């Protein structure tokens, strides 16, 4: 459904590229997370995907149509939500929907009503946007993105500023859209838990470069992760390094070749007073930290 091929963009010659040779693809009906720190290049990548930012090189295709060559045709298949959706505050929610959908050729009243009902804004849709809470704006943003009938939904930090209930509701709506309508979703976020719970796959960007592209669960990797507590943490770290492992945040990583029982007995043998030794499931957080630290390490090297 979406194919991003070797896109690069440098805004300023004196600064590194905002996006550097990034490629990834999202299959129809999949939800892909675009992860990265602030300034990692997520917004630029989304800008290129939407044809709002011109890449220095590379190409994006949506449903087989090249965005850089036939933008209007490609974008006709897309709905998008941006962080802090900017509606016309002086108009009602309903009028905003009419304005935005008019640029897609217009949408029938019944379809709009149905969408407004689905996002739960029926009672307030004729109020001015200036009276809307952030959560209501976000729901309206979802409604406008889904009108008329997108095949690809692009969400840029959609849950920023939402309360916990709002985040859960939004997440459920996205999953429902995927399951019910078979929508393809590209979700940009810096919230690991959000991506982990919603996405089938993830692309991690770091300083404009892609550092990971793959599944969110059971993504494997060449290391296993442990959570270890000891009464003498300094000895623990020293002993772990002797074993060939490394520490990342609160987690201890070591090659998959090593047996957990062997590791534990070596630690005890080294005089480490182990209180807790648990093998962690590979979480997105650990993956994120792994690829981030690798990148930082390469830069330092």
């Amino acid at each position, binding site marked *: 459904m979406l194919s991003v091929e070797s896109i690069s963009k440098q805004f300023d010659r004196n600064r590194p590229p905002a996006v550097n040779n990034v490629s990834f693809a999202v299959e129809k009906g999949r939800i892909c997370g675009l992860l990265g720190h602030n300034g990692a290049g997520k917004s630029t990548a989304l800008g290129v995907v939407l044809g*709002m*930012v011109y890449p220095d090189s590379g190409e994006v295709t949506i449903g087989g149509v090249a965005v850089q060559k036939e933008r209007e045709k490609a974008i006709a298949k*897309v709905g998008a939500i941006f962080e802090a959706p900017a509606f016309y505050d002086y108009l009602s929610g309903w*009028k905003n929907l009419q304005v935005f959908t008019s640029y897609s050729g217009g949408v029938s009243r019944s379809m709009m009503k149905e969408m407004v009902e689905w996002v739960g804004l029926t009672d307030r849709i004729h109020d001015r946007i200036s009276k809307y809470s952030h959560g209501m704006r976000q729901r309206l943003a979802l409604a406008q993105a889904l009108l008329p009938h997108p095949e690809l939904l692009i969400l840029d930090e959609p849950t920023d500023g939402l309360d916990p209930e709002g985040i859960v509701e939004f997440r459920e709506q996205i999953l429902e859209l995927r399951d019910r309508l078979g929508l393809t979703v590209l979700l940009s976020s810096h919230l690991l838990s959000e991506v982990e719970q919603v996405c089938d796959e993830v692309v991690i960007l770091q300083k404009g470069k892609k550092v990971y592209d793959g599944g969110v669960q059971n993504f494997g990797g060449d290391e296993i992760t442990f959570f270890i507590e000891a009464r003498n943490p300094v000895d623990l770290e020293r002993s772990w390094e002797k074993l060939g492992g490394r520490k990342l945040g609160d987690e201890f990583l070591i090659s998959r070749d090593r047996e957990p029982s062997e590791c534990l007995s070596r630690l005890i043998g080294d005089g480490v007073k182990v209180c807790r030794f648990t093998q962690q499931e590979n979480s997105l957080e650990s993956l994120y930290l792994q690829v981030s630290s690798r990148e930082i390490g390469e830069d330092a090297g």
Partner: protein
Amino acid sequence: MNLFFRQLGWELYRLFARRRTYIGFGIFLLVEIVFYLIWTRGGGARQLERMIQNVAGGLDEYLSGLTIAFLMVAFTMLMLGVIFVSLVAGDILAKESEDGNLRLLLVRPVSRFRLLLLKFLSCQIYTTALFLFVAFSSLVVGCLGQGWGGGMLVWAPDLPKVSLFEWWEGMSRYFFAILGFSIVYMPVIGIAFLLGCFRIKPAAATIVTIALIIADRILGKMSMEAFDPYREYFITSRMDAWYLLLYQNIPWARFFEQSAWLLGIGLTCFVLGWLVFERRDIKS
């Protein structure tokens, strides 16, 4: 085509749904009332009476609501109009870009050219609406003071001679000239619009346009011989072309020549704005 007009309709709806759009309408109404009060109490009417006595012979007939309405428009519109037209034209794109609305519009299957054209046309329609409002409200204020009917005397410092019309002919000339005036305003819209196509604050686009037009007016009106050969190149000098539609015998060739210049400048600004906007990266 139908879709284009529907989109233009929504563009205009948005423009006229904003309170600030009406600032110009309100200010002009206020200016007209103040003008009329000062004019009638400050001896302006007596001065005009003397002039009418000299050129037209009959006093009562030509000191009409229509004559006063024309004077109000002539003395207020050129510079005051620039402020409100620049405010709307400089704001229409730059403000949406600043607020982020533009990104939501551009994720729709609409070309940047079409989007700009819709906004540019909206500005032109706003200008025409504002001018017609000023023409109509000036006429109402004039008629409230002087009553309905009479002749129309057209005189302004920039006119080489006085024109005299009967009531209905004067009325049609008056509104026709105002329409022409709103069209020769296109360079003002064009400059403000062009500036708004850059990554610029809306206020900056408005202020720079106003400053340029005022500077143009000052230089164009400089009463020094050295400026004479260049006077025709000043935009505001050419914008006085609307007076031509109020000459007893309209010099059409001169009017079309001046209008073509002004429309050319306005459209060139639009095309330049489009080229700038088309190449711009739209980011948050």
